């Protein structure tokens, strides 16, 4: 047998089905990333209409998740994949769950943005939220890149970034507490802002999950819950 035939299946169609699923997942990732970008933009610009649009568009993400999920079940039932193919399908099923959650968090940010648009905007115009948002969006992008390239090293490097996101979130939290103590009238607004920060921090965690699936898919090794212990040691 020639070498290049080893990586392929005898059924070319199976290959195509797997590839289509991966492309759909990445497409869903693109839509989720755009939703996140618009949600943060709506908050920073105080654009309530844009925020409402993000909330409205979340159904696109949800219907994509359902469609990909069905496609994966169909492949498992019909092709009964094993080894690498099975890991790939499993990783895809898990990834879309995380992507859908990211979409939900973006929807939440959009909702909060349209609510906050009515309030007075803080002097720094949500600079710290913008910064955190940028970090998280980069993370999501890199995680999806790693998924596209099946690059476990890049995935690990991306997962590492979550610590910075957590630190930034902590900083925002401390700042928020100070603000609320200084001016109790702002509590409502600051709480909403804090929810946004919380959503962004959660999105970072979901991006880490996607990175872990990439490592699992390529190496067949489950690194979940390992990196923290290693990091602490």
């Amino acid at each position: 047998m020639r070498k290049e035939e080893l990586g392929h299946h005898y059924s070319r169609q199976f290959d195509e089905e797997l590839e289509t699923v991966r492309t759909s997942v990445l497409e869903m990732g693109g839509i989720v990333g755009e939703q996140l970008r618009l949600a943060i933009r709506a908050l920073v610009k105080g654009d309530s209409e844009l925020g409402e649009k993000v909330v409205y568009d979340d159904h696109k993400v949800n219907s994509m998740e359902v469609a990909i999920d069905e496609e994966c079940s169909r492949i498992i039932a019909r092709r009964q994949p094993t080894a690498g193919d099975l890991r790939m399908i499993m990783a895809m099923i898990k990834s879309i769950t995380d992507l859908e959650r990211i979409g939900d968090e973006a929807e939440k940010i959009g909702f909060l943005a349209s609510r906050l648009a009515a309030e007075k905007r803080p002097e720094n115009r949500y600079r710290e939220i913008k910064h955190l948002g940028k970090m998280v969006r980069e993370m999501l992008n890199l995680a999806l890149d790693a998924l596209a390239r099946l690059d476990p090293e890049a995935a690990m490097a991306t997962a590492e970034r979550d610590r910075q996101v957590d630190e930034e979130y902590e900083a925002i939290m401390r700042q928020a507490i100070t603000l609320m103590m200084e001016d109790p009238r702002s509590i409502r607004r600051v709480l909403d802002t804090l929810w946004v920060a919380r959503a962004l921090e959660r999105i970072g965690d979901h991006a880490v999950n996607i990175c872990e699936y990439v490592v699992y898919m390529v190496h067949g090794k489950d690194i979940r819950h390992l990196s923290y212990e290693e990091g602490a040691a």
Partner: protein
Amino acid sequence: MVSRPAFIALGRLLMLIAVAAVAGLVFGGLLFWLVGLLAAALAWQLYNLFRLERWLSLREGKLPRGVFGVWGQVYAGIYRLRSKHRERKKRLSRVIKEFRRSTAALPDASVVLNADHEIIWLNRAATELFGIRKADRGLRVDNIIRDPVFVDYLRSVDQDAPVEIRSPSKPGARLSLRLVPYGGEGQQMLLGRDITDRIRLEKVRRDFVANASHELRSPLTVINGYLDSLTSDPELPGAWRQPVCDMSHQAGRMQAIVEDLLTLSRLEAGAKKPARDRVDVGGLLAMIRKDALSLPERPGTIELRLDSEADLTGAENELYSAFSNLVSNAVKYTPATGRVEIGWSVDERGGHITVADTGKGIPADAIPRLTERFYRADKGRDRVSGGTGLGLAIAKHVLERHGATLEIESELGQGSRFTCHFPPERLAPGDNVVNLQQA
């Protein structure tokens, strides 16, 4: 056709048989000689065949020494063929290398895709602008460039108009992407250009126009105010009356231009979609017609033909300014004996508002430029008539924002026809019935 070496080989074989026959007759044992000599000849050929095979398997073989006769000719022939082939290959690969080097040096990102949208080749700028690396060859391009706008574009049938996306790799950069067919077998070339500077310049220009117009507004209001009170002042010396009237007239024009410029920049800056109010087209056009009828210099007939009761969804004030600009243009360029017709009709392609006149018409080469700011088809006349030169630009912007297109037909001396085509999704059924019920 039999080639020459084969003849020689055949001749030699026959000679060998003859020698064997002679030796057999002289020394006896004909069969022994025949078999022996033929076996020797076969061994010699096989040996040469073996050498040839080994020589061919070498990539860069020189012509071997000590090969004579038929085999020498075979070697020489193959050698000639091979060196010719090698020469051509070298030349071709030089051309390809040259081509790739020049495309690699292009500042525009270019990526060659196959029919399945998999990346085949890319240049250096593609790494910078798209974040696609050499190692990504074989991946589908929409796995890396995941912007929904691009993904939709990649799958769409009509790929003539480029799309704009944010660069996935270069922070803050905006790209204009275009797919062009490239070679056979459904290959495509994806071209990306960095248009960040262009977009920024455009914004600077827009802001400048908006700010300048805004700053001009207050001094103009003051000047206008004084000129107004001057013109109505009975003590104004007679010699000054005409100049002051002219000044007041021109200042009024200037104010109109500034207002139009501000309207335009508001329309341009308006990232938000126009409101989706229900606009009663019949009422709107009737109002515009009434305004036109009240103008001092106007054509004899201004007619309104409503063939539909459908409404439009959009921003009423914007649509009003667009239509009234079209109508006032028509009125301005039509002589007192002519006629202007305003129409509203609906068919399966959408709604159509037409403004037709029997005026002097527009030269064909001016039509595409009509909607440019301050463009004047007839340089002499327009200044006198006091238009701002922005009316059609405003109309075009408003229509674009409503997804509509402006079609201009005209024949010199016969008249012009401006048609606004609204897409069906902008239409709403007329609400006359609802009104009756409410009443």
